């Protein structure tokens, strides 16, 4: 290995690490606020990328049908529950607006306005508009009725959601992978190494998203509400913060981060319907490095995972995944060694 290869691998590692960092942040966020270990995070990566790719091949993305279908089911549930409850008229209008009117409007745009001919930026926006609302919808349908369940139950349910979404992904997008055109064709030479515009896009967008999240949590009322919920659910509830709303907001953010990550990496790597799972799991390894609670540690872990992956793909490419997933074991060992205070257990 010479310096040039090392720099190339480092560049690769940092790009992937940036994506894992985003996913790890989303996982930590969702876990802290809702106690859900969000395995389906990776499916949003694939859905985001493949929805965008569908526009470019002038196909109707299956995520549209999923959005319409889930919206319809939620609408039925809301209608049934509001008939049993009084005074929920405004809430109902709101729910029907988001779950019926919004998907219908998107359906009209997607089917009639030929998004394949649009500029890339608009296509990205439409892809996000289709995929991101699936996050809160999944929360409403799957997790909200289980809000009081144990972490373990929520984890098994997450795995179930993951399976269902992967299966749907196969149905929607087929088994073939897709790549999307780069955001920018520019490339720069830094000494011996060529840096592509897309690389800068990925790193820049990741940093921007991380800063935006930081500002959101530090400055906005909603961000503070989420932090309060993460620290103490009951306390936050007593202060008038709706944990359901907090949960939906988290899932919205997680879905947005996932879909955006997918759209960012799709020009660099071919995305298949099941790619998301591996990508998401590596985000997980990063999040576990951070102990599922610390954002900066999780981000550092993500870069570590990215570098480890790119260097091991050079030295022992067949064992790339083995090495990355085995990283978790020394990390767990280290966490097991750190003493922790005896706490009142979950009852």
């Amino acid at each position, binding site marked *: 290995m010479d310096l040039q290869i090392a720099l190339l691998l480092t560049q690769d590692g940092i790009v992937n690490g940036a994506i894992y960092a985003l996913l790890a942040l989303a996982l930590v966020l969702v876990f802290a606020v809702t106690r859900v270990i969000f395995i389906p995070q990776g499916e949003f990566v694939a859905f985001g990328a493949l929805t965008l790719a569908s526009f470019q091949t002038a196909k109707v993305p299956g995520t549209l049908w999923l959005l319409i279908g889930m919206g319809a089911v939620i609408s039925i549930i809301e209608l049934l529950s509001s008939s049993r409850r009084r005074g929920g008229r405004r809430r109902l209008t709101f729910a029907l607006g988001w779950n019926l009117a919004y998907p219908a409007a998107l359906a009209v745009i997607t089917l009639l306005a030929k998004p394949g001919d649009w500029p890339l930026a608009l296509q990205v926006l439409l892809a996000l508009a289709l995929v991101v609302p699936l996050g809160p919808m999944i929360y409403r349908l799957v997790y909200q009725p289980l809000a009081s369940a144990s972490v*373990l139950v929520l*984890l098994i349910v997450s795995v*179930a959601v993951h*399976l*269902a979404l992967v299966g749907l992904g196969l149905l929607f997008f087929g*088994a073939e992978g897709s790549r999307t055109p780069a955001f920018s064709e520019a490339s720069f030479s830094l000494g011996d190494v060529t840096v592509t515009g897309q690389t800068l896009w990925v790193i820049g967008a990741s940093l921007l998203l991380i800063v935006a999240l930081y500002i959101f949590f530090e400055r906005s009322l909603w961000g503070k509400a989420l932090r309060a919920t993460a620290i103490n659910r009951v306390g936050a509830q007593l202060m008038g913060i709706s944990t359901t709303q907090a949960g939906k907001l988290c899932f919205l953010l997680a879905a947005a981060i996932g879909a955006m990550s997918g759209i960012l990496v799709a020009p660099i790597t071919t995305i298949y319907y099941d790619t998301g799972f591996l990508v998401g799991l590596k985000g997980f390894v990063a999040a576990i490095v951070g102990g599922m609670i610390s954002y900066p540690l999780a981000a550092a872990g993500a870069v570590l995972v990215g570098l480890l992956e790119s260097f091991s793909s050079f030295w022992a490419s067949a064992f790339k995944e083995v090495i990355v*997933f085995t990283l978790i074991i020394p990390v*767990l060992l280290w966490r097991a060694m750190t003493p922790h205070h005896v706490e009142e257990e979950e*009852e």
Partner: protein
Amino acid sequence: MSPRILVGIFLVLLMVGPLVLPEFHITLLNYIGLYALVALGLVLLTGVGGLTSFGQAAFVGLGAYTTGYLTTAESLPAVLSWFGASPWLTLIAGLLVTLAVAGVLGLLTLRLSGHYLPLGTLAWGMSLYFLFGNVSFLGGHTGMTGIPPLSLFGFELRAGRHLYYLIWLILLAAVWMTQNLLDSREGRAIRALKNGGIMAEAMGVDTARSKMVIFLIAAAFAAISGWLYAHMQRFVNPTPFGLHIGIEYLFMAVIGGAGHVWGALVGAGLITVLKQWLQDLLPRVFGASGNFEIIVFGLLMIFVFHRARDGLWPLMARVLPVKRHARTVPSAEPLSRRAHPAVGTKLLEVRDAVKKFGGLVANNRMSLEVHAGEILALIGPNGAGKSTLFNLVTGVDPPTSGEVRFLGDRIDGRSSREIARRGMSRTFQHVRLLPAMSVLENVAIGAHLRGGAGVAAAAVHGERAEEARLLTEAARQIERVGLADSMFDAAGSLALGQQRAVEIARALASDPSLLLLDEPAAGLRYLEKETLADLLRKLRDEGMGILLVEHDMDFVMGLADRVVVMEFGEKIAEGLPEEVQRNPAVIEAYLGGVE
């Protein structure tokens, strides 16, 4: 129809099955048996023990690959060569490999809080799968062929219908042993894991060991299933040992009913048949090929968690005549008792105990003594540090400085388990019973340290004599606290006052020299308090030492021999009840100062 007849019909159907069914159905039944064996391990691990693993398929793979390698390799290293002689020896090798790997993984992950274990299993489930596919001597992604069939007394089990009997025999044996294990001293310890380890540890259960035991048993069942699989298929490749199959095993256990051994069979049967049917149906419906059945499984799983969280078996058990728990206590000779110190011996001595939480001094230079044959009451307003002191004495939290001695030996910094072994037993302020278990079983956990039969003896029910003695002891203590009529009821169905009495009975079942009671009278009605006070007096007269943390002044003053009063983490008074009641500092602490 009695349960015995039902099981009989089931067995007869199993026996006759291969004689009348076509090959295809026998193959399906073989698969159900193999999957059910893995799911059974998960019932023990997840449903009963509260630990979750997504990586069982990797253990199946270890069992399958070990036998695959040893029976097909051209030239084995000399150390391993004797394993190649017979597939029955490779079963042992497979079990050893799997237990070694599971042991290491267990050591790393079982100590961590709940969700790290399943996350860890996801990760090593992945890495073992990739390892199978990338190691050249294991055949890579194409796998290994030419694995010989099993043979039994010179008869080769080549056909599916021959192997069928072996698979189901092993499965039923595993079911029988698991059921036996759960209905034993070790089994009660395992069932106590799910509701938090503090109570179990306080009763002397080594919870880390219990967790490891069920983790290893589940891994062993998976390895046996893999061994059978390899000799049934006569071929192995990585596909059936991937993470998705590991997830499927967990689904089988959960959908069938993860808390019950028969749930494993129901789940494995349902998922296997459903998968077969959907794999046929869905590609035709969607007009494309692919494993679309995972959509249905995912949705089914979500539905089960929303509507029937305990799975299908409890629903089936309502219509089927299922064996109820015995409602009799076997009569057996009483357990031997420890040598109790003479009345007046100093049992517990706390000297200058300090406990700091960061900057907060919860206990400052606390000292007290309890002697055999006396009741010492520890009282004080809320937040005085009574519970902290209780935790220091019982080994839940170590003191920052100072000494705690029991019968002269230092016990500060020792584990609750070790302290329990020395003859100190406790109750909990917030009742910690296992609500689904009967009162008798709950109390029997208290006698855990008075039995010694291990897991292997329990699995074949070779420890019935000891078990009878443990249950007899539990029943005796339940009668003592006046709950003989509720002995077989679920502990969770009792009123709070009765549950507190069960806690006391459980503590007594350990034959303690010193009994620590954390607010035993809270929530009790007048008559219940009277009964409790009578019981405590009787115990004292028998020579037991009692440390009582209590709020209820009337209760304490009529009962205690001596009283220690705490405020702001310090002792402000000590003496006879009448003296303490007249002490101005105590009056000020309780009623506020006179301005």
